[in-house]
Structure formats: structure tokens, C-alpha cells
């Protein structure tokens, strides 16, 4: 212990006389126990432009059960949910056998547009103010960008603020939007309508590529990014304040026992923790429930849509870079909100997708099959003919807008990006608002850590920003469709041309998505045509194109709170909707037609549709081992 103190004080004297750093080292000493310390301050991240700065955090090793317990002062640290079965209790045992703990100033969960914008903004503020804060981003995908999928027609508003010189820095933003087409589809025709969108100044991009670029920028500035690590639980201190996350144990086999290569997860702590997990983030949802963040501002529930997308490489003659097409109508029925998009990127690639709102009523609806139908429409078919599919993927997105924004600050951190829900539904853009929310949270976190301000400044600044103005003006478009397709279109036209959100009322959302499903016996089954293998495909073929994979010998990450509900309720009452809305065929009925649910967790695309749409909210999506899931690169 004494040797350690001497070591620390000598290294701290080599630091700049920064009270922040010095006080941090002092804080570390207290919880450590003599017998188990093998800490060694190691050199910081290998980011090129910076000189070797002594570490401002280090790892402590705990070899004994008692030390782990003492370090965690709170008994609630082992779990934060009541839904754990056999598998989690074995994880708790492993946690006592030596979990390492790493501390940062700011911990960001999720390397998406919001998370990376927050990291970049934090490092920029550090540079401007000549101090240093350690920033760590953990990402469950195997690489930055592997789990990123989006339309995407990008509005560079937030990027202009974040990195004003992006145009000279080889950002993968090259194709300006050149036209805005809007079609109403019937089974055979495409009727051109005046476009409600104005994408002048926007760019057709691959968000996965842009996020990879942002990741590089964040690392250049000194952010530590760790892909391949999934945050499986939130860590709290004795006062119920969030102090960080724990990564999932690796190397547990299907039956819960430890495999040869078992590695316990690691506790990553942050003085501020920002959750940027994207739509329906697994930990963010727990935080929102725990701190009652929706109730705090009288927000409504969040509503969602499922987007299914393919990137095609098409014939040169049919390719028109920058062309932006949106459709409404067929194949969806007038009671189901949704539409499709077709964007021409570069390299003869196009992005094609269908977005279906998850408050659809007919449990027989299969969004994946609707997408396959769409591709056979003459107007779409003629673009695709002669082309090949490069990638496939699916992800849910927020449609709640303004009415569903929760209070995003909680003790210990904040929620940014789609985990809170800033997508502008009539524009169908969420990237720019997610990035801005990340930047604002970073500014608040910097203020909290450097100047002792409160994180609430994030909420205040959000409400003063263009994000709020935009979402407020857009708030009545989507709820109007609760009354039907035509009333929805009428209100949209009114809002777009005349009202622009300046009405004294705010329409409310209807039922929550999982409550909106009608009973199967009240609805007509839908017959879907067989795939032709050229334009439409079966799920396994599409899934192969998502490059999704998980180590099969791990416990299923899809937890059933009550394992009997699928056969007692989902199957008889709702005709097993999970076997229809899942775009990865994770949920399959037993081969003999018996109502037994088989969960092929290995196929999962991490879209979260099941977590949202299951009628009794019986399916809980939790993170699998890090590094699994899809490997998107063009999406």
C-alpha cells in the first residue's frame, strides 16, 4: 500500500499541476485494499498527435471476493432488474471472483452519431480550455459502424457546427440530393404527388460510413473507443446515482456454465455517463423507467416504426446519383402508417427500404414480406432489374417526436440521440438532431466536470436549440394519422403549407405499439407470395447479406419474462406475431406446428422490434456478447 502511494505521488507530480487530475488520483486510493493491488499507471491511449501523457486512470485488480464487495458499496450493483433467471445468478458469482474496474471522466455507451458527436465535442472543449478529460466510448458492434443502418439523406446542420471543415477532411459525404420525388403507389401505378420534402443542401450518404469517419475523428482527438464490448448493466452507487456500466461476461455457454475461455466483464465507470444506444436502447429504457423520466415532464410513451433496408448495386444506365424518392400507399393498407424510400448513392449503389409503423393492428402483417412485395412494383422493379443486393438490414426507429421526449438527465449522466428520441418524423431525419443532442450533452458534461455546473444545463440548452424548434414544429404530423390515411395527409398538407406547427394544440399519440395489435380472430390472414430469388428473397438469404453472427454457444440474449406466455397467449390470441415482425426469423414456431416458441438468437439483427411489439411486453432484448450482431458497412 505504501509503495503504491509513493508511486502515485511521484507520477502525480509529473502531471501538470491540474487540481482536477490530482484530486482524481487521491480518490482512487481510498477503496483499494492492500493485498490485491497490482495497479500500474500505464501510458494513455496511442492516439498519434499527443505526447505520452501519464495515465489519468488505472486498473485495480481484485483477487478476493471480499474486496469486490467492499469496493461496491451498494448491494444493488449485482443486478438492476428483476428479470434474471438462472444465468444471471451465475454471472453474479463470477463478479466476485475478480472484476476489473476502469474509470474515466466521461463514459459514452454507443458509438453512433450521437455518442461520437458527444466525444468529439468534449475533446474540442478540452483543447479549447487546455485541460484534459478522459473519454471512453464502448460499442457492442465488432467495429464502429457495424450496427449503424439508416436511410440516409443527411442534413449537415449539426456537422457544420461540430466539424466546420468536414468538406476538406474526406468525409464520406459526396452526393448532394438532386431531386425530391414523391409517389403514391397503387398495385400497378405510381402517381406523382408534390413532394413534401425539400432536400436541397442535403446529401445522400451511408450513415455507417459516416459514423466510421466520425469514429476516426474522435480517436484523433484522443477518445478511446472500444468496439466489441456490450454494456450489459448499469452500475449505481449507494445513493442510487449512475456511476457507469458493466460489460457482459464473455465465454458463458448456453447452459450458463463457464467455458474454457471465460472472461468476466469489466466495470467501466464515468463521472458522467452518456447513453447513446440508439432507438430503444436496452440500458436507456431501464434508466427511463427507474428514474421515471417520462413522468417527470409529462411525456407520452414512445412510438416506433420498423425499417427494413437493402443496398443494391444497379445498372449504370438506371443510376442517377442524388435522386431521392419517397412513396406512400401500396403495399401497406390505408390503416397502416408507413412508406418506402429509394435513394441513389454513389458507385452505382442505391438504398431501398420500407418503414412500417409498429402500431399496426393486423397481427398477420409481416413487414419483411411487405418489403419483398414492394420490390415487385413496376416503378421499383425497373430500377432494380439487372442489379444485385449488396447488404440487408433492419432497425426500429422513433416516431414519437416531440410528445415522447423524456427528461434526459438523471443522477450521474444523460441520455442522447435516439435513445431519448429526437427523430423528426415528417422529415424522416434523426441524424442531425441526434448529433446536436450529443454535442449539447457534451457541453453540459464539460460544464459539470470542469466548472461544477449541473447536468440540467443539457435540458435547458436542448430547449433553447434548433432541435426543440424543429421537433415542436413537426409534432402534429404523425399523430394526425391516428385518424386514418386521408385525414393524416390532409393535416400534413395543412401543416406543411400553412400552419407549420403554429397551432395552440398538440395532438396525442394513440395506444402504445404493443397494445395496438388486434386479436388474430378479428383479422384476416395475409397471403404473401413466394420469393422469386431475383428481386425478392427468403429471410435466410437476406440474413446472410447482413453478415450477422453471434457465437452460438452463449445464453440467448432474448429473455422471456414468463416463458409460458408465447404458448398461452401469443400463439392462440395473436397468431405468434413475433414470427412475423422479426426481420431475422429469430422467432419460429415449433416444426410440428405445436405452439412452442423456438428462439434462434444467433440470427438477431439487434433491431429491437420484439422488445417493442410483443403484446404483453414479455420479450426483453438484452445485449449478447460483444462483437456479435450485424456487420453493416454500406447501410
Amino acid at each position, binding site marked *: 500500500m505504501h509503495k503504491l502511494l509513493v508511486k502515485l505521488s511521484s507520477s502525480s507530480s509529473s502531471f501538470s499541476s491540474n487540481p482536477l487530475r490530482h484530486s482524481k488520483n487521491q480518490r482512487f486510493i481510498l477503496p483499494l485494499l492492500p493485498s490485491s493491488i497490482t495497479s500500474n499507471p*500505464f*501510458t494513455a*491511449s*496511442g492516439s498519434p498527435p499527443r505526447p505520452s501523457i501519464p495515465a489519468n486512470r488505472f*486498473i485495480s485488480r481484485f483477487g478476493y471476493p471480499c474486496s469486490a464487495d467492499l469496493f461496491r458499496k451498494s448491494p444493488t450493483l449485482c443486478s438492476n432488474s428483476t428479470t434474471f433467471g438462472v444465468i444471471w445468478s451465475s454471472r453474479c458469482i463470477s463478479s466476485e471472483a475478480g472484476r*476489473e474496474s*476502469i474509470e474515466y471522466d466521461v463514459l459514452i455507451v454507443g458509438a453512433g452519431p450521437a455518442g461520437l458527436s458527444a466525444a468529439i465535442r468534449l475533446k474540442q472543449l478540452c483543447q479549447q480550455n487546455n485541460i484534459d478529460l478522459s473519454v471512453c466510448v464502448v460499442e457492442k458492434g*465488432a*467495429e464502429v459502424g*457495424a450496427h449503424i443502418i439508416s436511410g440516409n439523406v443527411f442534413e449537415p446542420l449539426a456537422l457544420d457546427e461540430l466539424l466546420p471543415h468536414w468538406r476538406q477532411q474526406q468525409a464520406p459525404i459526396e452526393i448532394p440530393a438532386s431531386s425530391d420525388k414523391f409517389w403514391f403507389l397503387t398495385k400497378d401505378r405510381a402517381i406523382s404527388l408534390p413532394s413534401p420534402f425539400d432536400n436541397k443542401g442535403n446529401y445522400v450518404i451511408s450513415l455507417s*460510413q459516416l459514423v466510421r469517419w466520425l469514429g476516426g475523428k474522435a480517436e484523433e482527438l484522443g477518445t*478511446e473507443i*472500444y468496439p*466489441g*464490448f456490450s454494456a450489459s448493466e448499469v452500475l449505481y452507487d449507494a445513493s442510487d446515482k449512475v456511476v457507469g456500466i458493466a*460489460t457482459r461476461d*464473455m*465465454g458463458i455457454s448456453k447452459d450458463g456454465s463457464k*467455458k*474454457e*475461455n471465460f*472472461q468476466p466483464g*469489466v466495470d*467501466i465507470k464515468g463521472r458522467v455517463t452518456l447513453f447513446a444506444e440508439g432507438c430503444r436502447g436496452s440500458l436507456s429504457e431501464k434508466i427511463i423507467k427507474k428514474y421515471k423520466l417520462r413522468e417527470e415532464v409529462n411525456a407520452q410513451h414512445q412510438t416506433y416504426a420498423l425499417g427494413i433496408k437493402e443496398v443494391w448495386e444497379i445498372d449504370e444506365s438506371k443510376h442517377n446519383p442524388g435522386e431521392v424518392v419517397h412513396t406512400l400507399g401500396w403495399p401497406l393498407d390505408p390503416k397502416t402508417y408507413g412508406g418506402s424510400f429509394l435513394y441513389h448513392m454513389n458507385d452505382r449503389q442505391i438504398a431501398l427500404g420500407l418503414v412500417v409503423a409498429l402500431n399496426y393492428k393486423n397481427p398477420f402483417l409481416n413487414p419483411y414480406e411487405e418489403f419483398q412485395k414492394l420490390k415487385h412494383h413496376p416503378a421499383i422493379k425497373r430500377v432494380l432489374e439487372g442489379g*444485385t443486393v*449488396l447488404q440487408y438490414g433492419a432497425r426500429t426507429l422513433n416516431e414519437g417526436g416531440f410528445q415522447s421526449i423524456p427528461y434526459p438527465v438523471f443522477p450521474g449522466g444523460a441520455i442522447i440521440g435516439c435513445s431519448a428520441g429526437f427523430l423528426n418524423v415528417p422529415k424522416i431525419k434523426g441524424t442531425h438532431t441526434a448529433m446536436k443532442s450529443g454535442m449539447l450533452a457534451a457541453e453540459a458534461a464539460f460544464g459539470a466536470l470542469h466548472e461544477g455546473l449541473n447536468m440540467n444545463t443539457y435540458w435547458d440548452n436542448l430547449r433553447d436549440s434548433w432541435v426543440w424548434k424543429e421537433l415542436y414544429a413537426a409534432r402534429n404530423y404523425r399523430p394526425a394519422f391516428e385518424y386514418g390515411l386521408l385525414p393524416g395527409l390532409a393535416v400534413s398538407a395543412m401543416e406543411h403549407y400553412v400552419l407549420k406547427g403554429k397551432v395552440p394544440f398538440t395532438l396525442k399519440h394513440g395506444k402504445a405499439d404493443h397494445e395496438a395489435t388486434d386479436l388474430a380472430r378479428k383479422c384476416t390472414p395475409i397471403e404473401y407470395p413466394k420469393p422469386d430469388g431475383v428481386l425478392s428473397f427468403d429471410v435466410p438469404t437476406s440474413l*446472410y*447479406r447482413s*453478415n*450477422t*453472427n453471434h457465437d452460438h454457444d452463449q445464453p440467448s440474449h432474448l429473455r422471456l419474462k414468463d416463458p409460458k406466455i408465447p404458448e398461452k397467449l401469443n400463439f392462440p390470441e395473436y397468431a405468434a406475431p413475433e414470427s412475423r415482425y422479426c426481420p431475422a426469423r429469430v422467432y419460429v414456431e415449433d416444426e410440428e406446428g405445436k405452439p412452442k416458441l423456438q428462439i434462434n438468437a444467433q440470427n438477431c439483427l439487434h433491431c429491437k422490434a420484439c422488445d417493442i411489439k410483443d403484446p404483453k411486453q414479455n420479450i426483453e432484448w438484452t445485449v449478447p456478447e460483444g462483437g456479435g450482431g450485424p*456487420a453493416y*458497412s*454500406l447501410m
Partner: protein
Amino acid sequence: MKILVAVKRVVDYAVKIRVKPDKTGVDTQNVKMSMNPFCEIALEEALRIKEAGFAKEVVAVSIGPSQCVDTLRTGLAMGADRGIHVEANSSFLPLTIAKILRSLAEVENPGLIFLGKQAIDDDCNQTGQMVAALLGWPQATFASKVVLDNDKHVATVDREVDGGLETLSVDLPAVITTDLRLNQPRYATLPNIMKAKSKPIKKMTLEDLKVDIKSDIEIVEVTEPPKRKSGVIVSSVDELIDKLKNEAHVV
């Protein structure tokens, strides 16, 4: 004793690949790359030997473009002590790689060289054998068990051969290539990934190693396999024989 482990950066095994439109090769742009699974097994075995006390140092080496450094960092995070990156802008065939590894072995003087039995992108299964031949060292390929007897400077290796298992005794220094059942590679933990950032990776060029990279083999064309045609149900044995004779030309 020092162990040299050669690792290759290849397209991840779960990724769907496609052939480039100009047929010069497989499209590797914007595609997820990782360490070859057999190389991971090789590195894991080297680390276990070091942990058992038979070796002092494990050196990981990779030959390729600058992104190979990422693969080496993963190796360092698993536990290798240092890395060597041999800069090469085109992809090389096994004989060239073997020549490079031979030069490196003459510089580093390892007691063992571990390689994966084959790379999952070319499935050549040649590099390990060629390195052994160039160095004049014994080789034990498709290893499913490796036991070192450090006193005798001998390794006893079980090999997976077509007929079953073959046990060889090889004098060190030797070349061993690893097969699937040898071990289960460890995960790179977060603390180890952080520590790996400060482990050294030495950059070397082909000029440094004095290797002649001229290859006698040139890849002319890469095409996708022909699409599987759907099967035909025949109605009688005569029809079957007729089809086998006149359509498939196999009888």
C-alpha cells in the same frame, strides 16, 4: 525461448463476399476484416506455452498493408509481447510470405514458429510447410495437441490426418501449424486491449529483410462458382440412365 507467430488479416468468416466486377479478385473494400481463425488458435497455443513457462516471449508478425497493425494489436491484446509489421501493399502468395518469414526467423531466432494451418481467404495450406522447408526445420502440421519437453528440446505433436491421429516428435526449432481442435482462443479483454496500446510494433520493409518478391504465379481471373441449377425428378430408371449418359456424360 522465443515463439514467433504469423497472423494474417483476412475477411471475417461471417461476411458475405462477392467477386469484384472486373474479376480480379474478391471485393475487400468496406468489408469487415479480422484475424484468421487458425492464426488465433496458433497465437493462443503460443501464449499457453509461454504461460506454462516454456517460452519467454511471444512475437506476433503480420505481413500486409497498414491496417495489419489492427490485427497485431488484437494479438497483443490477447497476450503477445510485441509485434512486427512487414509493410506490403499487395497481397502475396504463400511462397513470398514463407521467404519473408524465413528472413525474420534468421533475425529473431525463435525456438518455435506457429502458423494457422491455412488462411480462410485462399485456403492454401502451404505457408507453414514452405517456411519449414526454406529454413530446413522440422514441421508438424494440423496440430491438435502440442506438448513440449523443454529439456530434450523436443515437441510431441498430435496431427489430424485423414486416417485419424498421427503423433510426431519434432526437434526444436520447428514449425507447427495449428488445426481447429487444438484450443479455444481467449477473448481480448478490455484492460488487455488498453495495455496493448503501449506494446511495441516494429515496422519493417521488404528491403530490410532482403526478400525477392517476384512471384512465378499470376492470378488471371476470379469468378463466382456457377449458380446451382435446380434438380430434375426423373420418372424411370431408363430416363435416369439416359440423362446420365447423354446429358451429364458420366457413364
